[in-house]
C-alpha cells in the first residue's frame, strides 16, 4: 500500500467514526431509551473501538495473539455492560 492509499484509507475510517458518533448523539437528543436502543448504542461504540484498534493503532497488520488485544478488551467489559443493562431492565 503506498503512502497516498494509506492516507485515504485512514481518512475514510475517520469519517466513519465521526458519522457513528453523530448517530449516537442524535439518538440521545431524540430521547430514545430502553434496552434495545442502549445495546445498539453500545454495539456502535464497540465497533468504533475496533476501528480505532485495527486501523489507528495498527493492529490489523499484526499476526498472532496481539492482534486481538483491543477486541478482547471491547468484548469482555462490553459483555459485562450488556449483562448489567439487561439485568437492570
Amino acid at each position, binding site marked *: 500500500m503506498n503512502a497516498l492509499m494509506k492516507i485515504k484509507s485512514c481518512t475514510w475510517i475517520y469519517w466513519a467514526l465521526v458519522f457513528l*458518533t453523530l448517530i449516537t448523539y442524535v439518538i*440521545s437528543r431524540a430521547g430514545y431509551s430502553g434496552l434495545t436502543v442502549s445495546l445498539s448504542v453500545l454495539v456502535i461504540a464497540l465497533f468504533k473501538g475496533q476501528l480505532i484498534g485495527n486501523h489507528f*493503532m*495498527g493492529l490489523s497488520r499484526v499476526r498472532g495473539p496481539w492482534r486481538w*488485544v483491543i477486541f478482547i*478488551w471491547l468484548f469482555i467489559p462490553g459483555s459485562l455492560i450488556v449483562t448489567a443493562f439487561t439485568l437492570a431492565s
Partner: protein
Amino acid sequence: MGRRCITAADLFLPAIIGCSLQINVLPPNMTDSTQIRRYPPGDLAIWIFIIAELLVFGIFFASYAFARANNVELFNTYQLTLDRQSALLNTLLLITSSYFVVRAILSIQADNSQHCIRWLLAAMAMGLMFIVVKSVEFAHHLGAGISLSTNTFYMFYLSLTFFHFLHVILGMVILTTLAIKTRQGAYSATQHDGIESGASYWHMVDLVWLILFPLVYVMR
C-alpha cells in the same frame, strides 16, 4: 544496541518512550508498516502499560453498569443533567486528534519530520480543547455544589471522567515529548518505535472515551 536517554524531555518516561531499545529476546519489529508484524507498533512495554490502563477502565465501566442496575431510576434521572453537547464535542475532538496522530505517524514513515510535527501539534490542539471543554463542565458541576458524595451516579460520572481527564493530560505530556523529540530528529522512516509507542497511548485515551461517552451520557 540501544541509546541511553539523557534529555530532560524524557527524564520521566525514559524506558517507555524516546528510547528505541531492541528487546533481545523478542524479534525486532518491522518498521515498514506494510509488512506483517508479530507485535503491535511501538515498544512492548507501553502496550503492557496500555493493557493495564484498559483493565482499570474496563473494571470501572463494568462497575458503573452494575451500580446502575441497582439504581436505575437514579442513574436515568441524573444522566439527563449532563451536558451532551460538550460530550459530543469532546468525542469529535478526540477522534480528530487520533486521526491527526495517525497522519503524524504516516508522515514519519515517509521520512517527513516537518509534517509529522505539524500533525502532532494539530493533535495536541484538539487535546487541549478537550481539556478546556471538560474543565468548563467540571467547573459547572462544582459550582452547582455537585461532588463525589452527592449520589452514586455523580460519584461514578465524576470519578470516571476525572480519571479519564488525567489520562488526557498524561497523553498531552507524551505528545509534547514526541513533538520535541521529532524536532530533535530522533525519529525517521527506519527508526520510529518511540513515536509509535506514544501514539498508541494516545489512541488508548481516545478508545476509552469512545466507550465512556455512550455509556455514561447516552445509554438509558
